[in-house]
């Protein structure tokens, strides 16, 4: 057994106490996110794993077999912490505070052997640095997974194609249009046109915060694709500032039917389908009331 590992194992209790004290004393302790008992259990588990991993004197390769348990525990901790809302700083400090606890104990024990102490502290440093990098990496991965999941969800719910009338589809776009989203929007719209046999599609962009030349390009593409399918596309919900940007950017929308509001687009669609909406005859209503 490696002498350093042996010493550390003997002093395990002191290290754990020291480490817990460090953590509890730290300002960034998040009692609101994790209870002290849980923290102690987590820390003890990690320390146990770490001490048995270094038994054979491996301080360098954290991807070796004996470290599997430690890296598993660490990844688990950092992914959960990422979801619980710990900051990256707090998550990394958790591992780094173990380093202080370990070197403190070594310092006390090896006071009369400075050379050995130096070598051991270096080893511990290297090991815990790699471990904290690993923690940070898994923390980030945990966060990214959350973001990806949310993006997927947004993409799924953000492109509803609504059938407002027989033969008229409406597609309210909320949020920024980028290439991948336009693709989804376009595919959904075209598929829905085939499914319902609608000949008019209204693209409402009142929920799009800004239109730049790329977004306009995407819109024109969608309109052209709809036209190729044999349906007409009306763009509605053009706000004043969007009209200004479009003209300033020199984007030509003269081939596209545009309307300021969804209501006027719908009216145009009714006209194109030769439909008429008119108020009910009031005499009928009053008759009903009298009866």
């Amino acid at each position, binding site marked *: 057994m490696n002498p350093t590992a042996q010493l550390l194992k003997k002093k395990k209790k002191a290290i754990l106490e020291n480490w817990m004290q460090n953590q509890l004393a730290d300002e960034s302790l998040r009692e609101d996110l994790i209870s002290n008992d849980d923290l102690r259990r987590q820390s003890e588990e990690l320390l146990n794993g770490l001490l048995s991993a270094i038994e054979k004197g491996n301080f360098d390769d954290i991807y070796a077999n004996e470290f599997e348990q430690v890296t598993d525990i660490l990844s688990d901790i950092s992914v959960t912490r990422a979801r619980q809302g710990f900051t990256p700083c707090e998550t990394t400090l958790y591992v780094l505070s173990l380093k202080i606890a370990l070197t403190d104990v070594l310092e006390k024990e090896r006071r009369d052997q400075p050379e050995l102490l130096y070598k051991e502290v270096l080893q511990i440093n290297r090991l815990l640095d790699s471990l904290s990098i690993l923690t940070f990496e898994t923390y980030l991965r945990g966060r990214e997974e959350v973001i990806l999941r949310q993006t997927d969800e947004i993409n799924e719910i953000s492109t509803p194609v609504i059938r407002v009338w027989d033969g008229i589809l409406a597609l309210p776009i909320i949020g920024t249009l980028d290439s991948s989203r336009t693709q989804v929007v376009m595919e959904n719209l*075209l598929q829905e046109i085939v499914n319902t046999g609608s000949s008019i599609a209204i693209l409402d962009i009142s929920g799009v915060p800004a239109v730049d030349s790329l977004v306009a390009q995407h819109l024109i593409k969608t309109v052209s*694709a709809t036209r190729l399918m*044999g349906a007409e596309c009306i763009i509605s919900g053009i706000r004043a500032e969007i009209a200004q940007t479009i003209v300033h950017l020199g984007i030509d929308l003269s081939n596209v039917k545009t309307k300021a509001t969804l209501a006027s687009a719908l009216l145009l669609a009714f006209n194109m389908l030769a439909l008429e909406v008119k108020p009910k005859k009031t005499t009928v209503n009053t008759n009903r009331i009298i009866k």
Partner: protein
Amino acid sequence: MERIPILKMGPFLLVTIQVDLYDRLALNLENDLINMVSKTGARGVLIDISAVNIVDSFMGRILGNIASMSRIMDAETVVVGMQPAVAITLVELGLTLQGVHTALNVEKGMELLYDKTDILTEQAEEDNDGETDDHDD
């Protein structure tokens, strides 16, 4: 050699493309179709591509060519039943088929052709003329 049949329906020509077009076939179609237009004096051409899943820029160009050639010979072209994937591909290729009319299905395409070529109004006028002639007599 494989050919795509061209059917004559009254004043219109009807082409249904049931196979994926390769270049030679598309060229033949263009040839046959234009010859048919000149032979029959058709007023409109309806091309159904609902069974076509793959297009390339060549095919897009052929469709555009057919439309332009027919236009010169006084026949309107309507392409019907384009698949979403095909439409997206053509747009990405920058081919928006200017000058080609499109419709969702054959039925709507026929309506559009009647609309564009004014054949119904012409017939109605002829009928009216006939009626007034009768009255005169």
